[in-house]
């Protein structure tokens, strides 16, 4: 419901850059004159519309460079980038940017403008009507969980976490198909970061935007991602779901990065939802026996497998039901799933 509400406001005003928010990189390379090695080296990758894809890798591996080529803050030396079937260089640059949300670590709110003005800047540029902008503002404030009374405030009157929420609202203001986020939560304290992360997961579920999210924090990547792109020295090393990365790491670099030689660490990176999804897609995991319906321990999709182990041990059962926040039964997860997951190279069997 909220999904329709959100996109309908913009339909009449935006010439859609793309029918879908799919992003395709085709052998994209970029070097800086100051460096001999390319910052991004022949990256080809397809990001499906509506996914939350995380770019993960050590500092300096080219994540930011790759991201900034999507909204043309950097121009590739070679290769092509497609957005929903259109090469991005066929569009006027500012028109392109107005249809891509952009969130950065330092937020970059305009200090001399109120929150209201900050958020409504792109809708104004696109010539929205005042009434439409006001409605949109209210909806966005609700979405990011800030009271409407904040609208006349200035950025300096907000906490760091609140500022980053406003940054997100500003990026979403004109209802873009695509959201680019460059370490947006890195400067926020740990407690707020976790809250912002779950809010982003929520929001992604509701809005169905394509999100390209940069981080060098492995936990963050695994919490958020539907798929992860691991980069190293400008090259794409592996592209897959969190479960695939843990169960079938391409090479030692990935294993080291994830620390996945440690079983508990491995379990802590994957959540219940990944198991359910993998079972649905590939029917690898058979799942446990149907549980007897009686009050007791229940799993949630966002629980990581490490806590599942402890819950299983505590409950003394072989499997536990998974329920979403509305208490619908999504399936069951048990020891057999964990055992299967820990045996590598599953699909080749």
């Amino acid at each position, binding site marked *: 419901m909220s999904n329709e509400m959100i996109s309908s406001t913009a339909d009449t005003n935006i010439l859609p850059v793309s029918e879908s928010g799919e992003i395709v990189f085709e052998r994209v390379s970029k070097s800086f004159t100051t460096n001999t090695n390319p910052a991004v080296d022949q990256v080809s990758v397809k990001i499906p519309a509506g996914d939350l894809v995380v770019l993960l890798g050590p500092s300096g591996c080219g994540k930011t460079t790759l991201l900034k080529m999507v*909204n043309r*803050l950097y121009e590739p030396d070679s290769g092509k980038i497609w957005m929903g079937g259109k090469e991005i260089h066929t569009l006027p*640059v*500012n*028109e*392109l*940017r*107005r*249809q*891509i949300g*952009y969130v*950065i*670590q*330092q*937020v*970059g*709110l*305009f*200090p*001399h403008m109120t929150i209201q003005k900050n958020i409504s*800047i*792109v809708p104004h*540029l696109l010539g929205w009507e005042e009434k439409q902008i006001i409605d949109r503002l209210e909806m966005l404030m609700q979405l990011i969980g800030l009271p409407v009374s904040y609208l006349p405030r*200035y950025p*300096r*009157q907000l906490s760091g976490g609140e500022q980053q929420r406003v*940054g997100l609202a*500003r990026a979403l203001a004109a209802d873009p198909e695509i959201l*680019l986020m460059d370490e947006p939560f890195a400067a926020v304290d740990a407690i707020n970061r976790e809250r912002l992360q779950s809010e982003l997961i929520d929001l992604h579920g509701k809005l169905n935007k394509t999100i390209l999210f940069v981080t060098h924090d492995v936990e963050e990547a695994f919490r958020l991602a539907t798929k992860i792109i691991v980069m190293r020295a400008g090259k794409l090393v592996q592209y897959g779901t969190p479960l695939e990365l843990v169960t079938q790491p391409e090479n030692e670099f990935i294993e080291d990065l994830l620390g996945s030689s440690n079983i508990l660490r491995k379990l802590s990176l994957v959540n219940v939802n990944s198991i359910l999804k993998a079972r649905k897609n590939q029917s690898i995991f058979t799942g446990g026996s149907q549980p007897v319906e009686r009050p007791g321990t229940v799993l949630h999709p966002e629980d990581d497998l490490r806590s599942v182990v402890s819950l299983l041990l505590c409950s003394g059962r072989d499997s536990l039901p998974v329920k979403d926040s509305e208490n619908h039964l999504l399936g069951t997860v048990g020891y057999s799933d964990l055992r299967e997951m820990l045996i590598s190279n599953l699909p080749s069997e």
Partner: protein
Amino acid sequence: MNYLVNNFDVVAKLFLQHLQLTLAVIFFSLLIGIPLGLLLARVRWLRGPVMSVLGIIYTIPSLSFFVLLIPLFGLGTRPAIIALTAYAQLLLIRNWLVGLTTIEPAVLEAARGMGLNGWQRFWQIEFPLALPMLLAGIRLVALSSIGIGTIAAFINAGGLGVLLFQGVITANYDKIFTGALAVTVLSFAANYFIRYLEQRAEFRIYGKRI
């Protein structure tokens, strides 16, 4: 004080002349300084050479500068405005440049990433954020022009300097005192008025200062 009471209209006329001269200098300084400062903010390597030239101009003694311009522009307000505008560039551009280059890079990156074009970025972001520094520069220009402008009376540019020069020649201390008093009043008024504008511009960006 007798001189001021008996010749109030003369003093008022010279006061207005002096104000006009100062406003003209501010106007022409901004006309040159704003675009030049913008250019220096964008083209880093130009900063050193241009600022050195402006620094050298600033060190020319004012009386000789005025006199040097007479063969080119004759006597009167024109050489005075030209010389004072040339002096003003150093004060104005230095401040304006600081204002432009100390804007947080993340703010400019966000503006670019959101799709504001160059013109929109300037008017909506850069100009308001650099405005307090620009006003500080204008204040310095006003004060120095009011001060050095007294010497311009020597080349027939009028203004309150007339009282000072005539007073010195005729040894009329009352006249000198009146001239000095009027210049001081003008300086203080200019300083407080522009400082007030500066604080308003600052307030929008930084909020209340303790």
